[in-house]
Structures are given as structure tokens and as C-alpha cells.
């Protein structure tokens, strides 16, 4: 039967993307480390490192206290120096656990009269709400499939699935704040999100790359990113970026994600798979103004 043979040939000639192997290796690695430790790996995002100078420790303590005590927060705002620094605070933090999962949410709030702050606070709350709702639905679907394929309720509980929404402050002073809101699920990484907020509180606007790098910001950033990619490729032969034909990096635009680091330089962020294979993870490029 020639037709069937040829149909089989077509089937066998389905192109398998190189990405498949990367994705599978990632799952194998994840599973292997779980095998070794016997625990479910926590969310991948690394917390912002706080320098342990006396002053920084002091500020960190104040922020913790601020977050837990409204009266203290009111007073702290009036204190010189410290009151000025604490612009991004935890609005609320809660944890919900049922037999299938734990949802842990830490929501930031920009403490400012600026109207842009108000909009962003609203956005943060909506984003977190939608994400946790959808994540809970995904867990339910996973559970249904798990039970259908012969798993038990008890085994599913043991997976100890966690859903997390949290934030990291990247930079803050009296007039300027930069932070990232992110969500992650312990059992699957495909739905992770990160949203960056850069706010000029003094002028009540969101900071753009143009504000930081000038009218030629696209060119400046592109050149710097390309140089840094070249350098990273030279440093490690395992590093790899997609070529232009593969949908790799061509140019940034006004919507490209970035945050502001402690040196007040913009850092451009590409999600996993955006410019490089998944094994390269999230790619960040600090753009130094010349």
C-alpha cells in the first residue's frame, strides 16, 4: 500500500525542534535534584541580596516592622531619612493551604500620593488575583489528570505544590522606585511571569528607557546588548543565543522589559526562551550610560 507507506514517511519526517531536547533535559535535571534532596524545588527567582552594612540592616528591619504595623508605618513616614526610603512596602501577605496546594502571596504597594502609584497598585492587585486564580485551576486540572492516570489523593497531597506571588525591590530612593512582581508555580515553569515597575514619584510618571538613556536609547541599548552577548559567548562555549533567523534578538523597543539597579543603570531583561534556549535562563543586560 503505497499511500500508507508514504503517509508513514510524512509522519516520520515531522521536524523535531532542537528545543525539545533542552526542555526534556531541564525536566530531567529538575527531577534528579528532587530525587537527591527528596524535596520539591522552590521557585527559581533569587531574592534581592541585601548588603549587610549596619545601615542596610537597619533599613531592612524597619521595612519588616513597617509591613506588620500600620501605626509604626504612619510614624516611620514622618521620620527623616528612613521615612523617605521606604516607598515600596508590603501591602499584605497571606498564605492559604488546602490539601492540594499552598498559595503564598506577598503583595507590594507603592506608598505615594502620586497618581501613577495608585494605578500601579491597582494593577498589581489585579495581576496577582488573576494569576493565583489561574494557577489554582491548573493545579486542579493536573490533579484530575493525575487521579485519572491511577494516582491517589494522598499521593497528590504529598507533591506539596506551591504557588507564589512575591516582589523584589531593585532600587528605591525618595523619588525613584524600581521593583519586580513575579509569580511562580513549583511544579511547572511555563506560566511564570515577571512584571517590572519603574516609577518616578517626583514627576508622577513611569520611567522609560528614553528617560534614562536619551533619545538614542534604542541604538545605545542594542549595541551594548550585542557586545555583551558576544562576550558571554566567548566566555563559555556552552552559551548560546538564537540567531536572527531563529527568532533571536534584533532590537529592543519602548516595551522591552527593564528595571533600575543599585547603580541607577537600566537592566534589560529577556524572559527565558526569548533570545536564547531555555537552558540559558532569564537573560539580563545592564546598560551603562557613556
Amino acid at each position, binding site marked *: 500500500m*503505497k*499511500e*500508507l*507507506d*508514504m*503517509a*508513514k*514517511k*510524512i*509522519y*516520520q*519526517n*515531522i*521536524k*523535531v*525542534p532542537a*528545543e*525539545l*531536547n533542552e*526542555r*526534556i533535559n531541564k*525536566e*530531567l535535571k*529538575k*527531577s*534528579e535534584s528532587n*530525587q537527591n534532596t527528596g524535596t520539591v524545588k522552590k521557585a527559581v527567582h533569587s531574592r534581592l541580596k541585601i548588603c549587610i552594612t549596619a545601615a542596610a540592616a537597619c533599613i531592612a528591619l524597619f521595612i519588616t516592622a513597617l509591613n506588620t504595623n500600620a501605626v509604626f508605618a504612619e510614624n516611620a513616614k514622618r521620620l527623616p531619612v528612613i521615612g523617605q526610603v521606604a516607598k515600596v512596602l508590603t501591602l499584605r501577605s497571606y498564605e492559604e493551604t488546602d490539601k492540594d496546594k499552598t498559595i503564598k502571596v506577598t503583595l507590594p504597594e507603592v506608598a505615594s500620593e502620586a497618581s501613577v502609584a495608585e494605578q500601579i497598585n491597582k494593577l498589581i492587585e489585579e495581576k496577582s488575583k488573576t494569576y493565583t486564580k489561574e494557577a489554582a485551576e491548573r493545579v486542579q*486540572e*493536573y490533579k484530575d*489528570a*493525575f487521579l*485519572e*492516570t*491511577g*494516582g491517589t489523593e494522598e*499521593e497528590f497531597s504529598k*507533591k506539596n505544590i506551591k504557588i507564589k506571588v512575591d516582589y523584589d525591590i531593585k532600587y528605591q530612593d525618595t523619588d525613584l522606585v524600581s521593583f519586580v512582581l513575579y509569580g511562580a508555580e513549583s*511544579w*511547572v515553569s*511555563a506560566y511564570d511571569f515577571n512584571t517590572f515597575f519603574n516609577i518616578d514619584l517626583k514627576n508622577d510618571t513611569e520611567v522609560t528607557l528614553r528617560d534614562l538613556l536619551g533619545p538614542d536609547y534604542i541604538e545605545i541599548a542594542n549595541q551594548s546588548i550585542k557586545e555583551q552577548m558576544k562576550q558571554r559567548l566567548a566566555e563559555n562555549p556552552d552559551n548560546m543565543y538564537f540567531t536572527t533567523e531563529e527568532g533571536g534578538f534584533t532590537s529592543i523597543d519602548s516595551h522591552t522589559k527593564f528595571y533600575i539597579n543599585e547603580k541607577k543603570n537600566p537592566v534589560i531583561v529577556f524572559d527565558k526562551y526569548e533570545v536564547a534556549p531555555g537552558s540559558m535562563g532569564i537573560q539580563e543586560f545592564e546598560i551603562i550610560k557613556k
Partner: protein
Amino acid sequence: MKVLGESVYAQLTEYITGSQNSFYRLAYSYLGNREAALDAVQNSVCKALENYQSIRNPEFLKTWFYRVLANECIAYRKKYQRDLPLEEKLVQKDFYYQKEFEAGLNLYEKVNRLPDKFKTIIILHYYEDMTLKEISEITNVNLNTVKTRLYAGIKKLQKAMKGEELL
């Protein structure tokens, strides 16, 4: 017990690494979309690695994995049905397509349009060269039903090829 568990795990990871291309082709046939097929295979691997303890006998590893994969594909399509473009025709860039395949193109597309219960059996049996017994384990239906469905599927295809039935 522990030693057995570890060896099943080792066998599973080896099997997954070695047969990943087959997994992808099956997923692609179900979903007709590159990204969706990648997601479905990855999710299946993730689930398989978490649940391998439920495999009592390493002999059933292959059929067990295919069952996870087939279920995942069907679940994926149900969930994202609206987002998946309906590819009536074969997307040539997703294949190493050669002109000589032309004769099978019509049949290939018709197989993909069969209802799942027939399609799974035809693909696994004719494309992946699995025995009907293996297919019965994968689809979780008894051997006689598999046979009946295989013949019913072939009949549907024959009719469709003659233009007597629309798929």
C-alpha cells in the same frame, strides 16, 4: 524496594531521552502545532518523572508513558482548543517534506482528522509499529475493542479516500 525504585527511575529517564522524537511526533499529530506539541511532551515528561513510582513492572514502562502522553495531548487540546489554529493542510515548514511523499499526503491528512479513538490506534500501529496488545495497554481498552476500532478506522479512511465519507 528502594533498589527496584531506583532502577525503574534510571530506565525511565533513559527511555525518555532515547524516544523523545517519537513522543514529539505523536504529540504533533494530535495537536498540529509545534509549540503545543513541545508543551505537551514537556508536561508529560514532568508528570512521568513525578509519578514513576506507580509503575509496578518496568516492562510496562513504554506503554505507561504513552498513556500519560496521549492523555496529556487530549487534555491540552481540550483546554486550549480555541487558541490552537486548525491546520487543515500540512504546514510544510514543520516537515522535511519531499515531493515523493505526495502520494501519501491525502491519507496522512485524513488520518489526522479521524476521531481520537481511531486515530490513536492507527498512528501507534501503522506509524509507530506497536502491537495491538501494546495499544490496548496504552489506551486502556481491551484487545478486542482495539481490533474492532482498528478495522472501523481503516474502513472510515477507505471511505474517505473514495469520497464516500467526510472526515
